[in-house]
């Protein structure tokens, strides 16, 4: 498969802390990669470097052959590498529908559409319909239509996460980075949310990287696992191998977990 994202020799230190130490990873198009590791191991730093929020001290990141190392987050988004957030970044004063419309509005603004002199309803870049229709469709796909008129602040945790990811999806990402998509979500909702997100991502043809602490989610949905520790990648393998690797068990998973890795292949074979 073609390599869509290529990170080479990434280095990042914050004073005495090494957040990334010679990270080399090639992500293949259409793959689903899980990033695991304890807090501070370097997973979020890795995502932050890809999205331009942090600049590596050394090394480079290439997307489809283009060097994106020095780009700003908004430029990365425009290249259609989009991320969701650990703490959902929603418009607090708006409803779910309002959030959608505001996000789509930014996309329209980026493309200079719907400006001063135009008439009629412009098509949202990357979509075949205007903002209202894209909003309705997207809410439907994520099962959020029932919450359409609820204010963002009143939403339960899982719904907030879904909305955050939905806002990310409308930017039509080719690479979708999910930062702990099920954290803060109740146990009964976790799988449902992940199923829904993965289905949409698949339909959109996006390559997915997700950071997770829940090893069952990782083993169920990831085709490939990158385990981080102390700024290094200590394992890079399919979940059934990576999650049972002794180093990974010691530094990431914890010894108590039994026999993981079943079912991952079935999701994405």
């Amino acid at each position, binding site marked *: 498969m073609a390599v869509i994202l290529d990170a080479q020799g990434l280095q990042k230190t914050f004073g005495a802390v090494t957040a990334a130490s010679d990270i080399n990873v090639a992500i293949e198009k259409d793959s689903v990669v899980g990033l695991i590791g304890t807090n501070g191991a370097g997973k979020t730093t890795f995502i932050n470097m890809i999205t331009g*929020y942090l600049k590596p001290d050394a090394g480079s990141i290439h997307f489809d052959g283009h060097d994106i190392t020095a780009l700003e987050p908004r430029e990365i988004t425009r290249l259609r590498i989009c991320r969701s*957030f*650990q*703490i959902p*970044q929603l418009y607090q004063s708006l409803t779910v529908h309002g959030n959608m419309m505001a996000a789509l509005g930014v996309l329209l603004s980026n493309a200079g559409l719907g400006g001063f002199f135009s008439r009629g309803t412009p098509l949202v870049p990357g979509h075949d319909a205007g903002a209202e229709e894209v909003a309705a469709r997207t809410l439907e796909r994520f099962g959020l239509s029932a919450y359409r008129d609820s204010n963002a602040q009143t939403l339960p945790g899982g719904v907030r996460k879904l909305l955050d990811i939905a806002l990310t999806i409308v930017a039509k990402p080719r690479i979708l980075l999910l930062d702990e998509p099920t954290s803060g979500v109740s146990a009964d909702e976790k799988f449902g949310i992940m199923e829904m997100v993965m289905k949409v991502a698949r339909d959109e043809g996006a390559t997915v990287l997700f950071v997770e602490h829940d090893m069952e989610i990782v083993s169920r949905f990831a085709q490939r696992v990158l385990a981080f520790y102390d700024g290094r990648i200590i394992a890079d393998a399919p979940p059934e191998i990576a999650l049972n690797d002794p180093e990974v068990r010691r530094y990431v998973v914890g010894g108590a977990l039994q026999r993981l890795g079943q079912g991952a292949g079935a999701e994405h074979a």
Partner: protein
Amino acid sequence: MEHIAAVLVDGIIYAAWLFVAAVGMTLIYGVMKIVNITHGSFYALGAYAGASMAGAWLARGYPPMLSYAVLLAAGVVVALVVAPLIERGLLRFMYAKDEVVILLITYALFLVLEDVIKLVWGVDPYFIAEPYGLLGSFEVGSLSYPTYNLILVGLALVSGAGLAWMLNRTRTGKLLRAVIHDPQVSSAMGVNVDRFYLVTFTFGSMLAALGGAFTAPTVSVVPGLGVEVVVLSFAVVVIGGLGSLPGAALGALIVGLVRSLSIHYLPQVELFVIYFVMALVLAVRPRGLFSLAEARKI
């Protein structure tokens, strides 16, 4: 050589005045996270109270040397009366609002107090020069300065040292620093945050009032006295860093010396240069010359 001495003495005297005038504002910001425009009103209240009370004292033929105590008392009393009224009566209901909104509320109060002062003391100037000349003068080279100016320097040193001691060496200071860092956690641990806010607001305003009271003998006390003090205090406090005590001292020194230099060498830039330094600090180091770290956002 003499010119440099003059620049230094002028600069230090002005810096002392600036420090006393501005330190209350930085204290209030540091503890309560509010930018307090009413600060200028307290300065004016102190000046008017000082001028009228000392004036009455001297008119009655009481010992002139005690007029300094009267000035002190005027500043203290006026703050003790007005500050709690404002804090308990209005501000404490507003703490949940955005910091810019609270600033606008203090601005509205400033407008109100400007007229309250006019209503209480009238619009005619107050002029009590006696305490200013009473202590004679001292020489620096061939220049002579009224010794009175040393009172301002003394006041600055005492208030600065006193605040520093209180913050770092007393139990109250420790609790205050806890409140500065996190009012909610402090409150959860049993600290009476409300009371600290009241005391801080009163004390900070008192310092402004004292600044005004002791300035009264050196100027003609007229309406609008507090207007300039507000914006100068902003400059001092911003240069040093909002909420920083050593910052206020440094800011006062910088503004004082810079102003003194410009008065002596290039008078046209006197005002311009003060605000230029303020803008420069904001451009290069927005949190001031004594700044604290900022946490990561995402």
